[in-house]
């Protein structure tokens, strides 16, 4: 099956995998909106959505349908191309990161070993950073193209917040990279599975904490949701948007949440490893069964982090803007630097 020197079966396999993972992230993002409303209701002693279907389970579909059928309004004074480009970029960059996350081990189907990772590239983590740093453009372009002061202020707030917290995020990850000695995502997971099977969170609790706070800020979630602070900016950078373009912005936030939860589970909580300190291969299960169980374990960890994201949103009030910048530049970056230097010293000391 070689035509134009491309292995078409390989291409087909990857396309199926991409389709599966994109669909999965969309469905999970859809139901995270439902979970968010249900958890909020639970925390506030209400019932939450319960009319569409049993337990309101069809509520996300109803919301999506509503957004699709609303009128599309493009403001006259906006730059039209950029106005449409903004939400599309937000959506694309949200989905791009899923390409390097190892979603499981290898499946053995039709006499072929199929890895549950779309691209096991040499620079896995750097790729994630690249995509995260591009996430700024969706907000900035959308906010500027709306030609509205509130949108512009919100866009600039969002962009400066994301740039500031990227630094601490990168520094906290450097400590993990020193432990593993590789940038490959599969290598990082493998490092947590092999040997005594210790997850990185045990070696790097501070690193994980910094990464988690930065992930909250990168996803523009409370307590860092300054770009959409209603009391100051009306509605934030998506004020002029209506219909599905608004939907894309809101949806991209939930996809970002899902993907960053998956990244946290992969980097610090063993990825598709089922239990820490246990060698799963001794359970006597077949390889395919272990892979599927591992995928379920990764999903369970991801859902837990999603729950924590939602929990924080309905518990902690919003920071002020100067507090946000102080926390990012004056507390998290020095903490991450100290964490990195101590890790480096310990690694050097133990290797001698």
């Amino acid at each position, binding site marked *: 099956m070689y035509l*134009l*020197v491309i292995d078409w079966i390989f291409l087909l396999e990857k396309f199926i995998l991409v389709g599966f993972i994109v669909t999965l992230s969309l469905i999970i993002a859809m139901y995270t909106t439902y979970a968010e409303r249900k958890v909020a209701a639970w925390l506030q002693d209400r019932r939450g959505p319960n009319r569409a279907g049993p337990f309101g389970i069809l509520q996300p579909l109803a919301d999506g349908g509503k957004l699709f059928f609303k009128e599309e309004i493009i403001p006259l004074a906006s*730059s039209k191309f950029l106005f449409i480009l903004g939400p599309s970029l937000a959506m694309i960059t949200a989905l791009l990161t899923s390409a390097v996350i190892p979603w499981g081990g290898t499946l053995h189907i039709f006499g072929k070993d199929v890895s549950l990772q779309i691209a096991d590239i*040499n620079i896995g983590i750097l*790729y994630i950073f690249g995509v995260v*740093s*591009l996430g700024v453009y969706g907000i900035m372009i959308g906010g500027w193209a709306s030609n509205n002061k509130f949108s512009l202020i919100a866009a*600039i707030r969002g*962009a400066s917040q994301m*740039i500031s917290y990227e630094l601490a995020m990168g520094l906290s990850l450097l400590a993990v990279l020193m432990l593993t000695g590789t940038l490959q995502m599969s290598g990082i997971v493998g490092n947590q599975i092999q040997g005594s099977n210790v997850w990185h969170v045990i070696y790097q609790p501070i690193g994980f904490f910094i990464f988690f706070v930065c992930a909250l800020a990168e996803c523009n979630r409370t307590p860092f949701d300054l770009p959409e602070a209603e009391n100051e900016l009306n509605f934030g950078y998506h004020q002029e948007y209506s219909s599905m373009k608004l939907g894309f912005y809101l949806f991209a936030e939930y996809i970002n949440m899902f993907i960053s939860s998956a990244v946290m589970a992969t980097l610090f909580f063993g990825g598709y490893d089922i239990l820490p300190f246990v060698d799963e291969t001794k359970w006597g299960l077949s390889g395919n069964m272990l892979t599927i169980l591992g995928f379920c374990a990764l999903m369970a960890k991801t859902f837990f982090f999603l729950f924590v994201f939602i929990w924080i949103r309905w518990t902690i009030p919003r920071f002020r803007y100067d507090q946000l910048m102080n926390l990012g530049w004056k507390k998290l970056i020095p903490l991450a630097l100290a964490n990195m230097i101590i890790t480096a010293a310990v690694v050097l000391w133990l290797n001698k």
Partner: protein
Amino acid sequence: MIIIKILFGFLTVVAIFSALMMITSKNPVYSVLWLIVTFFSISGHYILLNAQFLAIVNIIVYAGAIMVLFLFVIMLMNLNKETEPQKNRWIKMIGAIAGGCLLLVLVAALKDVGLKKQVAMVNGGDIGLIKNLGKELFSTYVVPFEISSILFLSAMVGAVVIGKKE
């Protein structure tokens, strides 16, 4: 090999077209966005040469950080084409001549360099992978590497000093 040729042709056309659009578009925000497209196509070229680290660093540093700052400044200053001052025709001509002189000097300098005989290794070679690149940087080229990092540090200190001045 043909697929690489197709990709190379596509990326080259995109790079040149977006660079031209960057120069010719009236609105500075569009210029910045076209420049970002140029950076992406150049990163594509790096990936064809199997220099993955260079490709991703190009995206992180230029497209992800520096261009965001450019966009920041342009958006805050609100440089629309109505407010842009019309430059003198003579200044434009002088600028073109000066740029042409620079191009001439560069071409003359690079004409006799031995680079012409070296053929780029497409889709092979592993010096661009991060492990080999890091080893090379921290052993053979450690002195220039450290000197350039000191240069960056001093630039950072300078920026802080300028920012602090009331």
